[in-house]
């Protein structure tokens, strides 16, 4: 099972600034293991961020996004105490959703 994300969401003026670290190998499909066998590609393909039922960001990624991906964005309309939920889905169908509370 995938490890939890680290999400920071904080007010920056009238906007919410979100910073996310995701635990994912983002495997390119070309590396070899100790025995010389190819390690299959394994990477996050889709990321969505939802606030109050509204999608505030959606992304499509390829394996060229760095391992343990980092993402930062900003949106309007959020308030301290509300929640932001991030979901990723990878090419093997693994999925993970985590939430963070917006801090002042």
């Amino acid at each position, binding site marked *: 099972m995938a490890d939890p994300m680290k999400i920071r969401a904080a007010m920056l003026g009238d906007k919410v600034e979100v910073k996310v670290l995701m635990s994912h190998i983002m495997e390119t499909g070309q590396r070899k293991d100790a025995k010389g066998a190819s390690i299959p590609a394994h990477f996050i393909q889709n990321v969505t961020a939802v606030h109050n039922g509204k*999608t505030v960001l959606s992304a499509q990624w390829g394996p060229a996004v760095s391992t343990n991906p980092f993402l930062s964005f900003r949106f309007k309309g959020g308030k301290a105490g509300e929640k932001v939920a991030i979901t990723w889905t990878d090419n093997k169908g693994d999925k993970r959703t985590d939430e963070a509370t917006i801090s002042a």
Partner: protein
Amino acid sequence: MNIQRRQALKSGGGMAVMAVAIVAGLIRPQDALAADWNGPAFAAKTVADTVKAMGGASAADSKAIQITAPDIAENGMVVPISVSSSLANTQSIAILVEKNPSTLSASFDIPDGTDPFVQTRVKMGQSSNVYAVVKADGKYYSAVKEIKVTLGGCGG
């Protein structure tokens, strides 16, 4: 992996090997099954083909797009890139690395209320031009920045 990669990086010609490595994983049939994942765009090998696969005819140069990234990345495995756009009605932002054999790294849909700004980190197999392609008001625009990737130290 690291050792092989260093070697590849050191012997100039070998750089492409790593880059090829990045794409090869992309174009497998099962990957294309993902509902909201633009397989053809992620398989494209050039900036022009990527723009086409994303639905644009071409992308015009624009000074309204700003790429913030270091001129030199100490390591190609993690290259920090942020893109912001001051184009009216910015709908999406994509990050393309010209010399990664699969050009497209990531694309972001920007709904109303979200700043036309994203920050992420990408892998670069070698020094390359990095493009930001922005869709605004239905049209495609781009900006470019060169990023150099340096070699590491002690011999592998």
